[in-house]
């Protein structure tokens, strides 16, 4: 195999060679640049493959025929190979993206780019402290040079500020290095790690200086002022390189230093990391400029990886999986978004509505956001699962909470941005038609999905991307060009087929919910046959939601349950977003749902005690004071989906604004997910007390007080549908609650599904289903008689509900007649 030293020597040779070409030979220079980057990428890929498949072990490259620590040496292990591949590929793609600019600037700019990439590879591979410094300086200088490529005049000031800050940093680093050398007698990182004790005793100050300098190079919050200006004003392809390339390489350098520093420095790194993650995400909320927002997001994500680096001791073998997952997801997503921003002319967030007519670009946008946040099936999801569980297992609950909080903020502002792109008015400036730029973005999308598959394979859990329901949903993406009626038929066929294939294996609880979801879903979709056209985006979203629901009811371990939960959340968000004025409602739905999802996540993590392979049945074995907390977390999480009091504000708007056939999907089927979760939780955990209060009773009574007044209010006018829909949900909730209350009145020990009185269950669930009249049907029928609050709490109450529910079912005439003109 070719020695990895050629990654450095080759790029340098290429850069020097470019100097020999005439300035007018732009094409030749550009081709040489691309060729060099392609060769180095291929070399990196070759090594990454060999290391990943185990064909070779990590390789040490010595120079000058002298062993370390007397000469500089490099190392290429699996982590280094992955990073080097990332850096080179990003460089190659950015060079493609920068085609026009490079042609304009000439061969010198191309040489600077080559050296930039080479220096990043050097930072990753070197094992020598001073060599690290030299490569850092190379990165700084080439960054300063490439910033000048932007046409934005503000980039000049940004670049100058950057140089000043870097000078200060390098002064401190040099002082630290020389005193560290004095303390240990060597400049080699590995030998310094072996002699860590004398270094940290006598040279602690020196190490501190070096560490602080490198952390400052990372540009963590709040010391990130100069970095943001660059992110905002430089050419987007270059911002992509800085975010993906420099961020990754510098993080790896911090990791190398932490190897020397040990435990106290890891705590420092974790603290800086989490502050950066939460702080930068908070600031990102307020940003209106797209590139500055991405800059803050970059700072936040780098903080997250720093946090992971600081938790290396408890992550153990999972370290590379977790850190790599978050880092690669960040790099691909961030680079993709920056490249995408080059297509949009306006810099305001709503200006991204320019992408509205471009389904491929919208898909790219959605993919990048998903990979950045860590939604299933992307690597961040697997990585965060392991990380959160490890944190819970070690009792680092504050970090866990802050981590999930920061993630929620991130999801919030990123999806708000997506909402702008889908719903705002298209600005007059067209999207740039450049072929190369789209090619680069396409490559990034492919990379994102490839990583999703790869991390699924590497994960100890099942590969989510290979789950049949999810694949079925994704199948609709390439079929988007077909007419809606055909897709509808396919969708209905798929739902029914899946039910038919699986129902024999269902237990009673799963059977009921399976019927509601799959058969009910197929029935609801029948109404969609009347829609004409292609309905772009409807079927993948709807199928994603159904896939999540289908996987939810058969989930046996917490991981699959949570993955299914998030899938159905995202699918339903996209569905709700399709409504006319639904932008704010869809966003609040998403934020509440994801917030609830993270609470469920936290609940599972606590319950599992740090075991990421937690089976749901094991919830039964939980004992101790922890159980109350877990109950509370899970309950609140499920209730956000069920739209219980306080967590319901998204519901009316979403229902009203959603398309006609989406409403019943959301109210009748989607909300059942929350109900399923509550059932599951109650059966596994039984009655629980927290701080003396019986939580099951709290649950049961939450919906009751408000439902009755809502039911008796007379309604007229155009808002009938809205009110009826809302009221229907209230009533539906109340009926669920009654069913649950019935459950709660059963003896205290935890129940298996088979032991339940099926009538109680069916009555409660179906009753609530029937009690949720489609707005279209109830309003013309006039005042509806509803069970009053006096039925709650009595023995035999469930039976009463069953009777009413079954009666009402008979009265409701299928299929629902869509209301005209409302």
């Amino acid at each position, binding site marked *: 195999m070719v*020695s990895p*030293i050629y990654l*450095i*020597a080759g790029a*340098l*040779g290429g*850069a*020097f*060679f*470019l*100097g*020999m070409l005439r300035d007018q030979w732009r094409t030749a220079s550009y081709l040489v640049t691309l060729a060099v980057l392609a060769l180095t990428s291929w070399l990196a890929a070759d090594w990454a493959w060999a290391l990943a498949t185990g064909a070779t072990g990590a390789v040490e*490259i*010595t*120079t*000058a*025929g*002298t062993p370390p*620590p*007397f*000469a*500089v040496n490099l190392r290429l292990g699996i982590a280094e190979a992955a990073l080097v591949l990332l850096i080179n590929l990003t460089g190659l793609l950015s060079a493609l993206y920068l085609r026009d600019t490079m042609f304009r*600037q*000439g061969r*010198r*700019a191309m*040489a*600077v780019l080559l*050296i930039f990439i*080479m*220096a990043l590879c*050097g930072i990753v591979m*070197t094992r*020598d402290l*001073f*060599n690290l410094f*030299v*490569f850092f*300086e*190379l990165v700084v*200088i*080439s960054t*300063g*040079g490439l910033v*000048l490529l932007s046409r934005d005049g503000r980039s000049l000031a940004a670049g100058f500020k950057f140089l000043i800050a870097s000078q200060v940093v390098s002064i*401190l680093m040099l*002082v630290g290095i020389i*005193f560290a050398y*004095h303390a240990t*007698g*060597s*400049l080699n990182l590995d*030998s310094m790690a072996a002699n860590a004790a004398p270094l940290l005793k*006598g040279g602690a*100050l*020196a190490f*501190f*200086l070096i560490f602080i300098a490198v952390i400052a190079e990372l540009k963590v919050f709040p010391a990130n002022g100069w970095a943001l200006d660059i992110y905002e004003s430089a050419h987007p392809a270059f911002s992509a390189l800085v975010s993906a390339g420099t961020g990754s390489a510098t993080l790896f350098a911090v990791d190398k230093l932490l190897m020397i520093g040990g435990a106290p420095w890891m705590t420092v790194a974790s603290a800086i990391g989490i502050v950066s993650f939460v702080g930068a995400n908070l600031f990102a909320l307020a940003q209106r400029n797209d590139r500055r927002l991405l800059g803050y997001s970059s700072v936040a994500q780098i903080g997250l990886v720093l946090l992971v680096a600081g938790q290396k001791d408890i992550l153990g073998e999972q370290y590379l999986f977790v850190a790599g997952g978050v880092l690669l997801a960040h790099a691909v997503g961030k680079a993709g978004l920056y490249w995408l921003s080059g297509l949009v002319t306006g810099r305001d967030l709503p200006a991204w509505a320019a992408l509205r007519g471009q389904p491929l670009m919208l898909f790219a946008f959605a993919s990048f956001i998903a990979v950045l946040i860590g939604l299933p099936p992307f690597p961040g999801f697997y990585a965060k699962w392991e990380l959160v569980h490890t944190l819970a297992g070690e009792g680092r609950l504050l970090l866990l909470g802050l981590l999930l909080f920061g993630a929620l903020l991130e999801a919030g502002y990123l999806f708000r941005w997506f909402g702008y792109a889908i719903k705002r008015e298209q600005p007059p400036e067209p999207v740039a038609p450049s072929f190369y730029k789209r090619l680069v973005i396409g490559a990034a999308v492919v990379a994102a999905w490839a990583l999703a598959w790869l991390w699924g394979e590497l994960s100890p859990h099942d590969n989510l991307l290979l789950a049949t329901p999810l694949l079925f949903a994704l199948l609709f993406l390439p079929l988007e060009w077909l007419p809606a009626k055909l897709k509808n038929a396919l969708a209905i066929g798929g739902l029914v087929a899946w039910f038919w294939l699986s129902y024999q294996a269902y237990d009673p609880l799963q059977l009921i919910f399976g019927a509601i979801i799959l058969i009910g879903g197929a029935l609801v979709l029948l109404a969609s046959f009347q829609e004409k056209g292609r309905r772009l985006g409807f079927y993948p979203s709807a199928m994603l939601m159904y896939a999540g629901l289908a996987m939810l009811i058969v989930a046996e371990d917490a991981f699959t349950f949570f993955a299914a939960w998030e899938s159905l959340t995202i699918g339903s968000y996209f569905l709700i977003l399709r409504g006319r004025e639904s932008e704010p409602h869809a966003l609040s739905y998403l934020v509440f749902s994801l917030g609830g999802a993270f609470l469920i996540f936290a609940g599972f993590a606590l319950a599992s005690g740090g075991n990421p392979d937690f089976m749901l049945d094991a919830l039964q074995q939980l004992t101790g004071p922890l159980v109350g907390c877990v109950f509370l977390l899970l309950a609140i999480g499920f209730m956000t989906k069920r739209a219980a009091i306080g967590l319901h504000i998204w519901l009316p708007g979403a229902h009203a604004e959603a398309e006609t056939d989406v409403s019943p999907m959301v109210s009748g089927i989607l909300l059942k997910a929350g109900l399923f979760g509550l059932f599951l939780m109650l059966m596994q955990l039984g009655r629980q007390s927290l701080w003396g209060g019986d939580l099951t009773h709290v649950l049961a009574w939450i919906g009751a007080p408000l439902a009755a007044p809502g039911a008796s209010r007379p309604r007229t006018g155009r808002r009938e549908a809205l009110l009826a829909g809302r009221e229907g949900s209230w009533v539906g909730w109340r009926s669920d609650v009654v069913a649950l209350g019935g459950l709660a009145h059963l003896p205290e020990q935890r129940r298996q599904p088979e032991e339940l009185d099926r009538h109680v269950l069916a009555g409660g669930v179906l009753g609530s289903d029937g009690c949720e009249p489609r707005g279209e049907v109830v309003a013309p029928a006039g005042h509806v008689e509803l069970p009053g609050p006096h039925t709650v709490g009595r023995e035999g109450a469930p039976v009463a509900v069953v009777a009413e529910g079954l009666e009402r079912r008979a009265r409701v005439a299928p299929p629902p007649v869509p209301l005209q003109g409302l």
Partner: protein
Amino acid sequence: MIKRLTLLLLLAGIGSLFAGLVLTYVPDETLNLTASYYAERTAEDLGAANIVTAIIVTYRGLDTLGEVTVLFLTAAIVGLVLARGKETAGKPQRQLPPPGELLTTGTRLLLPLILLFGAYVFSHGHLTPGGGFQGGAILASAMLLLLLSNPARRFSHRLITLVESTAGISFVFIGILGILLAGGFLDNRILPTGTFGELFSAGAIPLIYTLVGLKVGAEFSSMLVSLSETEEL
């Protein structure tokens, strides 16, 4: 006011760090691990008399490669940013006063001496104090003298860049030869180490350092020329 106060606080912090370093500093009694290795092994392994040169060119050759690249990078960027040479090529706008007699004669006298001295320094890097960087800087000072004495004179960027690039590629090539013919990248033993203390000894070190000297000289000259061309005559 606040800014100044923060700055003073920051400097006070850094100053205290420095004070800590100074107070705990204990000079070595004997050479440490790496230094003693270099002291004992340089003469027989590499054949170089100047140990610092041996470290720079061979043992820590990768650092030197990076350093040389820094200069290349800077020259390229400065050239890119200040590219006005072609535009102002031609007659100057106003009539320049002639450089003084002292300057002209001095230049004519000193220029060849400076160039010779520079060449001596970088070619004898392995024997006496000095080396490629120092020699290259001296060469560039000759260029500076020329620029000062005749500001209107235009230099060929083409030639400078050619020298620079050729030297750079040769450096990388020699490094790769080290992998193929000797122990590793930038190993100087591709050429025989010869007799200790002679000009043609220490393997490839004089060759590398000569190339470095030419490259550094060319790059500094390029930077000086680019900067001087910004002057509007």
